């Protein structure tokens, strides 16, 4: 059995980072959370725009993403900071995250007595919890426990020809070792869904895949607009991608060649072993945040145009097939596979280089996004503000 060094969690999960996460239940708590992380090095906050004036499935989605991010195995301990009157229930959120066995503290600004007292209280709590986390050490864990998301953003024509097929090779390697891959971006399989549908392991999963694409396309119809210009974006078009179909057909190779074992909801727990499809928007940050909330340890992110994207609780490995862009934006890029296009390196060998990078990042090597402090986080919204 192949192993690597990671943090063993009480519930059997493994973490490849050991973050102290500070969660605001509502936008009103953002500033208190931000002040606390300024005073506690390496603590991470996930400020967001949500948590109040929401109902139904939209409110539930915010709760699920906050809970999922707290439950992500890269998070060792959590502080939840509430205002005290919002719709996201901070106690229910704490209880949900505590199911993992990790320490969770919760308080609200109205009870503590305003921002200054909340910041002071939060800093003291965070320093104590962080000290406990810092005493934990990595141990040998099975490589098969690793869950990796695959995503592309800021795509150009090199994505479909080089970086996505190379990432697909790495995805196949992880699944060969018993691990898990999740692909998302329902928008960006429009025009290519028939190719993925043939790989679904049951007729029900195939039907579900067609259903989520159809549901999305109907939303576009309802908006009365041509997707082109929104997706493919102006940058995609400048990079040579003419239609959503062309973009989609270039996208899907990033998940490799394994059978699709399930279609899961946005932010839903990613099952163990094999390839899964998460119903998510193509939007980079919403998609990556959904994968993190589903329990992904890492996201591998291909780009041709170049993007700094990181994520709050998981490393994001940036991969490009565009050699000019790599040289131009090297501080944001982790792996250059542009030699595929010059014909000097095979897709297979490039995929192996990505697979090696995944394993090194899993054992603690920092990605460029982590070094630069990119901790983007956003929650997909499915209802109006009240």
């Amino acid at each position, binding site marked *: 059995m192949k192993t690597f060094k990671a943090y063993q969690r009480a519930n059997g999960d493994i973490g490849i980072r050991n973050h102290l996460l500070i969660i605001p239940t509502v936008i009103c708590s953002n500033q208190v959370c931000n002040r606390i992380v300024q005073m506690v090095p390496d603590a991470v906050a996930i400020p967001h725009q949500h948590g109040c004036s929401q109902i139904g499935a939209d409110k539930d989605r915010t709760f699920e993403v906050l809970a999922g991010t707290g439950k992500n195995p890269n998070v060792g301990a959590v502080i939840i900071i509430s205002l005290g009157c919002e719709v996201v229930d901070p106690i229910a959120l704490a209880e949900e995250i505590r199911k993992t066995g990790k320490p969770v503290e919760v308080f609200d600004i109205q009870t503590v007595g305003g921002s200054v007292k909340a910041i002071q209280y939060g800093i003291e709590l965070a320093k104590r919890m962080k000290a406990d986390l810092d005493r934990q050490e990595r141990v040998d864990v099975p490589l098969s426990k690793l869950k990796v998301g695959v995503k592309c953003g800021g795509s*150009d*024509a*090199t994505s*479909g*020809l*080089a970086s*996505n*097929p190379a990432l697909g090779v790495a995805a196949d390697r992880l699944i060969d070792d018993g691990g898990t891959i999740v692909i998302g971006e329902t*928008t960006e399989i*429009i*025009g*290519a869904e028939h*190719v993925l549908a043939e790989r679904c392991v049951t007729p029900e999963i195939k039907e579900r895949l067609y259903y989520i694409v159809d549901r999305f*396309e109907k939303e*576009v*119809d*309802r*908006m*009365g*607009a*041509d*997707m*082109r210009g929104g*997706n493919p974006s102006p940058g995609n*078009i400048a*990079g*040579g991608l*003419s*239609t*959503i*179909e*062309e973009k989609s*057909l*270039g996208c*899907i*190779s990033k998940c490799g060649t394994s059978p699709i074992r399930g279609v899961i909801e946005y932010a839903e727990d990613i099952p163990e072993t094999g390839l899964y499809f998460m119903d998510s928007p193509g939007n980079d940050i919403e998609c990556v945040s959904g994968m993190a909330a589903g329990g992904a340890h890492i996201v591998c992110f291909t780009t*041709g145009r170049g993007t700094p994207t990181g994520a709050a609780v998981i490393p994001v490995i940036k991969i490009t097939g*565009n050699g*000019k862009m790599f040289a131009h934006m090297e501080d944001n890029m982790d792996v250059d596979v542009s030699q*595929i*296009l*010059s*014909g*000097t390196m*095979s*897709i*297979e060998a490039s995929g192996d280089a990505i697979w090696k990078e995944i394993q090194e990042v899993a054992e603690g090597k920092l990605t460029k996004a982590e070094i630069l402090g990119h901790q983007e986080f956003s929650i997909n919204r499915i209802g109006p503000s009240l």
Partner: protein
Amino acid sequence: MAGDIQAGADALVVDSKDHVATALRDLNEGETAAIRRGEELIEIKLLDAVAFGHKIAIAEIPNGTEVRKYGEVIGRSTVVIEAGRHVHVHNIEGIRGRGDQAVKEAQA
């Protein structure tokens, strides 16, 4: 989908069913591009400048044709596209995600 690329080509055809090649460097109007298509290397004189990553018609594409890349349909031509032309948003359109056409159909 995409396969390994041999050195020495200016553009690449991904699949034998494709109408287009992808430029592997910035190509000038009037130059003759060496295009890799499977085992063969075909030469096409370019009628437009074609930037790195953009597409070239490798044979004449009639108006209204379902245009293929990766062996799959990426859109439909909106004019006759001659071999050697730049193929992009000005001469092909998407078929999917067309809420604009759904509105037109509803009004008709």
